[in-house]
């Protein structure tokens, strides 16, 4: 076995090995059991007191959502203000200009929605103040997703009807007990490996050739840690994790890679430590793992085997498909990162996805189209929850019982919400892509595509998949900083962030208020392998049926043309 494969296995193995104890710890945090970070509670109480929050007051699902949406609106306004005025505000040693309104809109939405699609380059497009505000957004947007997810955990496992807990408390604990400690550890390791952490401006260097060059730096390590851990993905530098100062060596690459998947996996394990949810957690984990492998294995295979067109012309495929990749990571680890960053809604990149083989590019798109094989922190589970509702409904019927999930009956209202949310993602991706294709064809706004044909289509499809999955990575190849893309992406991100959180929380809230049906031999067990297969089938079929025609015009057509 070659070293590349060993590296991949070590990274994946370490991720799961670390996620298990972390999951146990996360469950303890939310269930109010003692942990080693309890010395922080005076600080938390201080914040509660200042904000006038009663962390132990029960909130119903509607007020939980009001709290969540209210906070996000305030952050959006803050972001717009800072980004549009950054040129004349403090902490701007490089004198970067203010953002245009459409770019500021795109960027603010992009960061509060945990997407981190960047239509600017950090080095020249954002001041250090803006970068810090964006880091703040990276923390709070991740914490919002996790808090919403814990709400649903609580609703599913509670024995007391309607007891959901308090959104503010979940939000606060997520930041102080989970995100901050992990980020501090990761940021420290990164800065030891050479990632900059400073507020000073560009550094002037004389290179080996004797040229003078100026190197961008700034508070990068802090941002990169939360960017990876919070499935944000928005990097400090334009080249993201391919930049040597963002991701200096194989070790940082491995750590950053692990950080992408760590919390999404740990949250699923955490569910297993909630009362009576062990089996459910196991089922969800294995379904997600299966989905992850279905996407990761072909991507790694195609990247390691190189481009047949080049092989044909006599170039050895030994290094794999190295176009657009960093030599220090290699084709295999880059492919693994590519899939990890797209199945979760992370979106940081350490190689150019535009240069991946057609079908590896497709697995990345599919990761975002499904968006729940681990998925973004918190929201990955929420997306999975919707598929689970649909799977429970169909399989409940198939065993001759009104469908129920953890003892709660699924009826018309829940189905209505689940159908709308399941529909939303294909709707946004396909309609936005159709709009862009139409605009391109009618030549109103042209010149954004650098590639014609199937690949150009893939680029547009990828862009909106990324926006709608709140992923934020780019295929590249599109000049996306135009009002058309800034605004259309921004709208897609808003819808695809908030509705898929509102929907599952509403369903969980409705279900939590219902009577719990005691289990019997006729009850469909949701922790069985059979049901797991059913969920996987529902996910695959819905995703495949929605996107197969579009994909067949992009990567599939490209693949068969290339491999003919």
């Amino acid at each position: 076995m070659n070293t590349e494969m060993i590296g991949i296995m070590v990274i994946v193995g370490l991720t799961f090995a670390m996620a298990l104890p972390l999951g146990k710890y996360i469950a303890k945090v939310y269930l109010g059991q003692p942990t080693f970070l309890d010395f922080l509670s005076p600080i938390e109480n201080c914040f509660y007191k200042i904000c006038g929050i009663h962390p132990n007051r029960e909130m119903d699902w509607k007020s939980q959502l009001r709290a969540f949406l209210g906070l996000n609106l305030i952050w959006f306004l803050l972001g717009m203000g800072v980004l549009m005025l950054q040129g004349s505000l403090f902490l701007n040693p490089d004198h970067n200009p203010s953002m245009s309104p459409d770019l500021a809109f795109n960027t603010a939405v992009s960061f509060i929605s945990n997407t981190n699609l960047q239509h600017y380059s950090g080095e020249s497009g954002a001041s250090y103040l803006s970068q810090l505000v964006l880091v703040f957004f990276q923390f709070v947007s991740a914490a919002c997703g996790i808090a919403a997810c814990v709400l649903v955990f609580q609703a599913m496992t509670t024995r007391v009807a309607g007891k959901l807990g308090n959104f503010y408390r979940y939000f606060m604990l997520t930041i102080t007990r989970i995100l901050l400690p992990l980020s501090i550890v990761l940021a420290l390791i990164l800065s030891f490996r050479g990632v900059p952490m400073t507020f000073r401006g560009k550094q002037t260097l004389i290179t080996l050739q004797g040229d003078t060059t100026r190197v961008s730096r700034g508070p990068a390590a802090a941002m990169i840690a939360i960017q990876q851990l919070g499935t944000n993905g928005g990097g400090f530098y334009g080249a993201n994790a391919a930049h040597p100062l963002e991701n200096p060596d194989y070790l940082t690459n491995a750590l950053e890679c692990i950080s992408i998947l760590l919390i999404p996996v740990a949250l699923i394990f955490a569910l297993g430590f909630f009362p009576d949810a062990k089996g459910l957690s196991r089922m969800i984990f294995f379904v997600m793992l299966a989905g992850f492998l279905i996407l990761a294995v072909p991507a790694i295979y195609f990247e390691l085997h190189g481009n047949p067109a080049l092989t044909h012309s006599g170039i050895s495929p030994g290094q794999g498909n190295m176009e657009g990749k960093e030599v220090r990571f290699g084709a295999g680890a880059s492919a693994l990162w590519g899939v990890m960053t797209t199945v979760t809604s992370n979106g940081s990149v350490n190689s150019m996805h535009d240069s991946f083989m057609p079908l590896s590019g497709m697995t990345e798109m599919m990761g975002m189209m499904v968006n729940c094989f681990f998925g973004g922190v918190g929201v990955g589970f929420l997306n999975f929850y919707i598929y689970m509702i649909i799977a429970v409904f169909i399989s409940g019927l198939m065993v001759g019982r009104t469908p129920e999930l953890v003892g709660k009956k699924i009826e018309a209202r829940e189905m209505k919400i689940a159908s709308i949310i399941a529909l939303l993602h294909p709707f946004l991706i396909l309609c936005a892509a159709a709009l862009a294709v139409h605009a391109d064809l009618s030549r109103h706004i042209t010149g954004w595509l650098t590639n014609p044909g199937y690949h150009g289509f893939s680029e547009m499809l990828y862009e909106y998949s990324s926006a709608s999955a709140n992923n934020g990575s780019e295929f590249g190849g599109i000049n996306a900083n135009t009002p058309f893309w800034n605004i259309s992406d921004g709208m897609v991100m808003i819808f695809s962030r908030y509705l898929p959180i509102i929907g599952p929380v509403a369903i969980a809230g409705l279900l939590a208020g219902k009577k719990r049906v005691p289990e019997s031999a006729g009850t469909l067990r949701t922790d069985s392998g059979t049901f797991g297969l059913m969920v996987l089938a529902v996910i695959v079929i819905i995703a495949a049926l929605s996107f197969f025609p579009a994909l067949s015009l992009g990567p599939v057509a490209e693949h068969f043309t290339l491999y003919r």
Partner: protein
Amino acid sequence: MKENHASRIRGLLRIALGQAFLKLDPRKLIHNPVMFTVEIGTAIMAVVTWLAGTRPGLSQGTVAYNAAITIVLFITVLFANFAEAFAEARGKAQADSLRKSRQDTPAKKIFPVGEMYVNEVRVVRSSELVKGDLFLCEANDIIPMDGEIVEGMASIDESAITGESAPVIRESGGDRSGVTGGTRVLSDRITVQVTANPGETFLDQMIALVEGASRRKTPNEIALTILLAGFTIMFLIVCVTLEPFGEFAHTSITIASFISLFVCLIPTTIGGLLSAIGIAGMNRALEANVITKSGRAVETAGDVDVLLLDKTGTITIGNRKATGLWPAEGVDPGEFAAYCALASKADETPEGKSVLELSTAALNGHPVPGEVSQWIPFSAETRSSGVNLKDGRKIRKGSSDVIRSAVVRAGQEFSSATGERVNQIAAGGGTPLVVSVDQKVYGVIELQDVIKPGIQDRFDRLRKMGVRTVMVTGDNALTARYIAGVAGVDDFIAEAKPVDKMDFIRKQQQMGRLVAMMGDGTNDAPALAQADIGVAMNSGTQAAKEAGNMVDLDNDPTKLIEIVEIGKQLLMTRGSLTTFSIANDVAKYFAIVPALFITSIPALQALNIMHLESPASAILSAIIFNAIIIPLLIPLALRGVAYKPIGASALLRRNLVLYGIGGIIVPFIGIKAIDLLVGFFFMAHH
């Protein structure tokens, strides 16, 4: 018989076919969103066909091709309508044949103030009877209308309704006062009050339900319709956005192709069969001689968690029988038998009769020790019965504690041997009756229940379905436990009063369980109303029948088990056909997507894994398959997916393999076969 059956089916087909056309009315079809979109697609295709014929420059394919697509789409809608119409027609035919038995028969109506007398009896037609009227039935009369006996008692032949030839006894006052129109009085004479106006009987209600006039979608059906509508919208988006995508790839897609792709992908199979499945559920209930008052009731039956069953008549056959006479120590067996016989001589209850029978046989030539002067009937207060003899002696038989307290009060001894005997009988599932003469214990009569053969298997089946069975009995806890153990019920309520049933149901419902019960008496009515599924026996009182949501014409308490299975089948059929319908899309994609793009992107030939003849024949084959799968599945929709009590996970596995994996494979074979046929005719044509 066979020929008769065939002609009956032919009749149904003719009716259903006519109805299928009537149901094309968009105002009716809009209730079925999936098929409604297909109808719109058909209309658009008709216009396109006409345009293709009149405007030669239009690049929308040949007239023949467009016409073929239009016709197939039209037939798809027709097939779906036909499925619903056929299920309706069949239900109506079943109900009609039941109703036929009660058509105009002469009725002896009682006029409170007649032309000549008060309470004059005149013969009128049954259709003239209205609710509240009284009529008289004598031996050999056909009972003209459903009603309740207000006076008298009669033996009645109910074979016309139930198929059971043994006559039954119906009498006023008790819980068996209901009579059904169409049945025949064999003996005696009864006065009956009409309980429903013509056209408003339960059977009429059910016919209306089947015919669709008052049929409403059940909650589960609504939820499924929402999901199917969701899929429909999703595929609409997929098809609409494909237009610019195709244009970007320099592929123009004809309207016919778009509409074919759309119709193939939306779940037409389940959409077309959904209402037929629901009607068929009610039909199956009717086949089991159960009238349901709503479609919802059948569906709920599948969810039942707890089954409340009366011991008598359900778990045991009829009434208890005397099986043993145990004289007290020092009492001659013959003498004891004689007293037993005397005590039961006037006892008309089946139990009393069986005591008389047994003790007469055990007399052994012993003379009858006296003459009866007064018969003391059983009452709930004294909980004993007996006779007073002319010489003043008092014979009593009753439950051990009643006799014991009377004996002890009189200063006599209640021996420990007797006490032991009593316990022994009770522990063995029997009911002990202690006999005393002048407050002196003479012995114990053992009454035993006879448990219905095969009942254990049925409870076992229920347990595997996840349904708990609870026996309700007036017996003491010891007896109840024994019978519960032998019969295999999960739980029992002993010494139950009517109010206990009600409390039990409420308690179970608070825990989130759905409860089903069967009852006949007026005092069952509140519990029947409270239960999620209340099945009233047709022989029961009107109050009971009004309170329940189903009426069992056979008066068979074990019918609940069948009803639960029918409910489960109904849901399973829906779920399995939904799965089948969605799984079909995989193959349809592999037929249509290459066909759409192959001319401009030859590399996509690799997706044409079925090696279909040409793009046109691929699309045509896919929509033909899509259409004919509907009538092919009608028998399954009407019959229902087979239910097997093997546990939920095993059942899911089984149905997933059959309808999920089957649903992926079948269309591959079907579309390929149709493509070969289409290709063959196309070739022959040229």
